[in-house]
């Protein structure tokens, strides 16, 4: 793909002696939505966290929007400004109000004026449908609301790419949809998204490609149609069998 915005080339990653990523290669184009799935402990989080260098890889290359991630702090800073991340446990700042959660990084990292970013933040809060919660603290919100705040917080940095690490796994079932709806909207607007999730309905309707990982390697990747109807490897069939039973 010529307009690749994320490129992983033979990426290797070790936690001490544990080999967590084995020669992972993946190219993601601008505006593409990629869903990553696989059994627990297969390295999904590790891979996605290498993309914004929450974890450092040891071998291979990761290039994000033209910047190669290295030990150089500058490259990390540059990449993090362009990549938003949403975590399984929301990780909102509990001592700040919702609005302060949204405006903190734009003010301190991007140097935006408070009044300007507050207006933008309110716009995003309306888009995730919780403008009335702006002055509450995260602890006063439901899980689904907190995750939508977390998405809005990442969007306030105007990222080119959004990473989601199991954004609905910590939610009560009745709250999953409100978060997925926001993500679908975001996808429809053309955001580049890499999403670790086991929501196969979401994967089927939104993803351009699905990546299946096991034991630190990418076993197969392809369009949702291929992946669900015609999985190539036995490992994938087994996984799909388990996950689609529920």
């Amino acid at each position, binding site marked *: 793909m010529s307009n690749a915005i994320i490129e992983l080339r033979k990426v290797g990653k070790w936690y001490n002696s544990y080999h967590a990523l084995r020669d992972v290669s993946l190219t993601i184009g601008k505006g593409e939505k990629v869903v990553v799935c696989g059994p*627990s*402990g297969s390295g999904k*989080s590790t891979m996605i966290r290498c993309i*914004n260098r*929450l974890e450092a890889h040891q071998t291979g290359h990761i290039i994000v929007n033209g910047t190669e991630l290295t030990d150089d702090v500058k490259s990390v*800073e540059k990449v*993090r*400004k362009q*990549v*938003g*991340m949403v*975590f*399984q*446990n929301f*990780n*909102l*700042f*509990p*001592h700040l109000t919702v609005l302060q959660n949204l405006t*903190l*990084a734009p003010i*301190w*990292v991007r140097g935006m004026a408070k009044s300007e970013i507050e207006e933008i933040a309110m716009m995003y809060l309306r888009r995730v449908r919780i403008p009335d919660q702006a002055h509450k*603290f995260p*602890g*006063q919100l439901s899980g689904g609301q907190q995750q939508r705040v977390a998405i809005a*917080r*990442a969007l306030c*940095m105007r990222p080119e790419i959004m990473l989601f690490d*199991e954004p609905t*796994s*910590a939610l009560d079932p009745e709250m999953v949809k409100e978060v997925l709806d926001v993500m679908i909207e975001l996808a429809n607007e053309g955001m580049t998204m890499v999403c670790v999730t086991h929501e196969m309905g979401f994967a089927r309707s939104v993803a351009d490609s699905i990546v299946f990982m096991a034991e630190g390697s990418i076993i197969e990747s392809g369009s949702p149609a291929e992946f669900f109807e015609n999985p190539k490897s036995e490992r994938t069939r087994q996984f799909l069998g388990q996950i689609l039973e529920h």
Partner: protein
Amino acid sequence: MSKDNPSQPSAAWAASYEEEPSQAGVPPSPGGMTALKPFGWAKDNLFNSRLNTVLTLICLAILWFAVPPVVSWVLLDATWTGSSEACREAVGACWSVIVVKHRLIFFGTYPFDEQWRPFLACGLFVAMLGVSGVRAFWRPWLVGAWALVLVGMGVLMWGGVLGLTHVPNDKWGGLPITLMLSVFAIALAFPLSILLALGRQSSLPAIRSICVGFIELMRGVPLVSVLFMASVMFPLFLPEGVTIDKLLRALAGLTLFTAAYLAEAVRGGLQAIPRGQYEAADALGLGYWQKTWLIVLPQALRIVIPPIVNQFISCFKDTSLVTIVGLYDLLTAATVATTDPEWRPFFAEVYVFAGLVFWIFCFSMSRYSQWLERMANRYNRR
């Protein structure tokens, strides 16, 4: 450590931010016994089981034997104004010693006719501390006000300008020494302790070992020896001709000692912050100092308000040890007051009084910390 355990961080939150008990609702009292309330209450709380009844009776007996003699010594049989002869004849406490000696206890050897100056300086200082504790006053002008007050205190204490006679600081003593040493030591030790605690977690081995070494050294040595070292050994390292004031040397010793203990309290708070908070800050592109200042410290320090204030209180009381390097704090001044042969028999009263002064300050700090804790953790209400 798995990153995928959703319950882990939330459990950590629950542990570090316990819901404070609601104070609004009075627990419903059983039955409608409004009229018989005191009896009903006593029956429910003091005599509700055989063991409790026995314990209540024991407590009552202790009170019965202890309270009357204390009350009569402190109040009923006490001498409030008389001479030392009157005191010798009375059986109760001799509070006249305080009346006679209070200027010596409070201001030590500061020239007697100039003692309005330390009095005013202490008043200003305490008032300013009170003002600084009020949230509505946490504004930029407070810094300016502090600068003014500190200059004002310096002028009052030292003099030498505005027609005030010069009083060198080896003549200072009593409450001003205790207050200034403890407040300055706390004010300097607190930021230092934060740096030490952060350094102890640093990924750079050199910084980490310096911080650990310093903390462990200070914690392993009694304050008395730290003060001795500060006052005897500091000067040895200084170039010839340069001298540092005795008061400053003691302040340095007290500050370093307190900082080491505070650093451990702060570290406890740092460790309670879930890793997800650091990761979220990193992912948003915040730098180390931004992350520390905006995300980590505000949460960590809220958690450790109680142990921090505990350390403040310790530091306040520890100032009484500076007597061993020849400084004249409140307790030393009180001791000197007891050496007057005429009043020597009444040393107990002098120490009770000095203790009371210490207690007033420490108790205020303790109450303030409770308020601060409630206010700081408001965000945790659901």
